[in-house]
């Protein structure tokens, strides 16, 4: 009895710590008062203001666009890396390949951002590409730091499943690319989905790398939000947080229900 009480208290305190700030933010998003902290009454005013704020709407659309493109390219490259490292024995300078595909994971983002910015500036001086900093440079940077995360997910899936299935298909004369599309790809499909989602979130959440590599017309949502809250509070950002929380909770509930029905099967 004592033990389960300890367990309940630990979990209650832990989850309270995780949720208290988020819930406070949501509560204050309904506050009528312009001074964020003084409660004046319930109001949806800031939601209205938020949807009229063109800067935030535009940044949101740019973020979604960059994140979905980045996630897609990062997933393609990540699958290639995961497949190469587990299925292809002849990789030139293999240790170097492993180094390249895993060290972005341990590189602080401020260093990544700085290095990419210096690279874009030099490459612009040398060959005129990229012609200016913008959505393209942010996209390239996001793909670069997301690839490693996707690769590690795919790699762990591929190394845990039985290679013999592919070899059996090969012995039965199946074409190699058919083996990939008919056997390997379906097996790793759940990992591809999680890899894509992770890369999408990483891109959507990134502030530091985007701050280095962005340019005119490429202010992503975190950049705009950061500029709004750096020096003070913003009731519109509270409303934005509440909406993002709502989206995340809906996605989580879906995920939970799908998982549960899978387990039942």
């Amino acid at each position, binding site marked *: 009895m004592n033990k389960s009480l300890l367990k309940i208290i*630990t979990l209650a305190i832990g*989850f309270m*710590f*995780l949720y208290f*700030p*988020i819930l*406070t*933010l949501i509560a204050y998003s309904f506050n009528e008062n312009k*001074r964020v*902290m*003084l409660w004046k009454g319930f109001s949806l005013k800031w939601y209205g203001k938020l949807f009229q704020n063109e800067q935030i709407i535009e940044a949101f659309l740019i973020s979604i666009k960059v994140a979905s493109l980045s996630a897609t390219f990062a997933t393609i490259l*990540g699958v*290639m890396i995961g497949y*190469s490292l587990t299925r292809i024995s002849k*990789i*030139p300078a293999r240790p170097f390949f492993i180094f*390249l*595909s*895993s*060290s*972005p994971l*341990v*590189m*602080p*983002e*401020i*260093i990544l951002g*700085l*290095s*990419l910015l*210096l690279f874009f500036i*030099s490459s612009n001086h040398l060959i005129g590409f990229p012609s200016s900093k913008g959505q393209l440079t942010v996209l*390239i*940077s996001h*793909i*670069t730091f997301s*690839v490693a995360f996707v690769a590690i997910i795919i790699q762990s899936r591929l190394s845990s499943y039985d290679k013999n299935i592919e070899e059996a298909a090969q012995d039965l004369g199946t074409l*190699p*690319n058919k083996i990939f599309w008919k056997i390997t790809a379906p097996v790793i499909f759940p990992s591809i989905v999680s890899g894509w989602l992770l890369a999408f*979130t990483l891109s959507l*959440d990134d*502030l*530091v790398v985007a701050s280095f590599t962005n340019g005119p017309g490429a202010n992503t949502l*975190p950049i705009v*939000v*950061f500029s709004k*809250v*750096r020096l003070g*509070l913003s009731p519109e*950002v*509270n409303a934005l*947080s509440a909406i*993002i*929380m709502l989206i*995340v*909770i809906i*996605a*989580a509930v879906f995920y*939970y229900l799908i998982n*549960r029905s899978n387990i039942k099967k």
Partner: protein
Amino acid sequence: MSQFIFLMNNFLRKQNFWFVFTPYFWLILFFFIPLALIFKISISVSEWGMPPYRDFIDFSDGGIKINSTLSNYAFIFSDSFYLRSFLNSLSLAFTSTLICLFIGYPIAFYVAKSKENIRNLLLILLIIPFWTSFLLRVYAWKVILQGSGIINVILMKLGFINEPISMLYNQYTVILGVVYTYLPFMILPLYGYLVKFDLNLINASNDLGAKPLKTFIRVILPLSLPGIIAGSMLVFIPVVGEFVIPELLGGSDKLYFGKIIWDEFFVNRDWPIASALAMSGILILVIPIIIFQLMFAKYNFKNE
């Protein structure tokens, strides 16, 4: 038939070729060359202009002159300002990793040991903050700790204080912000290892007469060590370069490494110094971590 097999082999090789070549090319171009460039600029001579450093190889006098210098490194290592900011970041990362571990371990343990249907629900509850924007979670603390924020209001209502105390903008709010935002990164890998862990081992240890503390130290802890290391890495490494949290919640009492790089680049426009700082960060922090991970992977591989 043999020709067909030959063609197939050729195709296989081609598919394999593209599978290796494409990411290889991408990472060399956009990861390796930029890092090499940081190194190059870190040993360049800074000067006014655009770009604000002298050309590495100078042909202007008719001959070839290489402009390279270690003075940027000498400068940052001689000025205690830089060294202190790096140490501040290391101690911030160390402290918050430890706190995350102490808070995260019991949570991960109890979630992993719950009944399956409750466990899945709790897991979702752990993932929700992880998915929510990092920036907004930091901002939430700024709202809570404000002078007229909820904490101050409660403390005043309870009569502990008469007027709002200022809790924001110091090193402790930075630690709080870091622990809060990085806690899921500690809990999730720990959970991943603890959930695979066989409960019967605890029972066996108890049956053999071990006290709960001994069971924990001798059985549970060693088996969750990979999770502890993975979680600690996920917290420690990004926190050393952390820029956003000190910028939003921190004050002027302590400066951190990420902020210094940012300011050297964007405010002082001293690219060579910023690059030398980044390069030192890589040499002191990143390379040892990569070596450690390789060794740990080998150790794990041997033990399995």
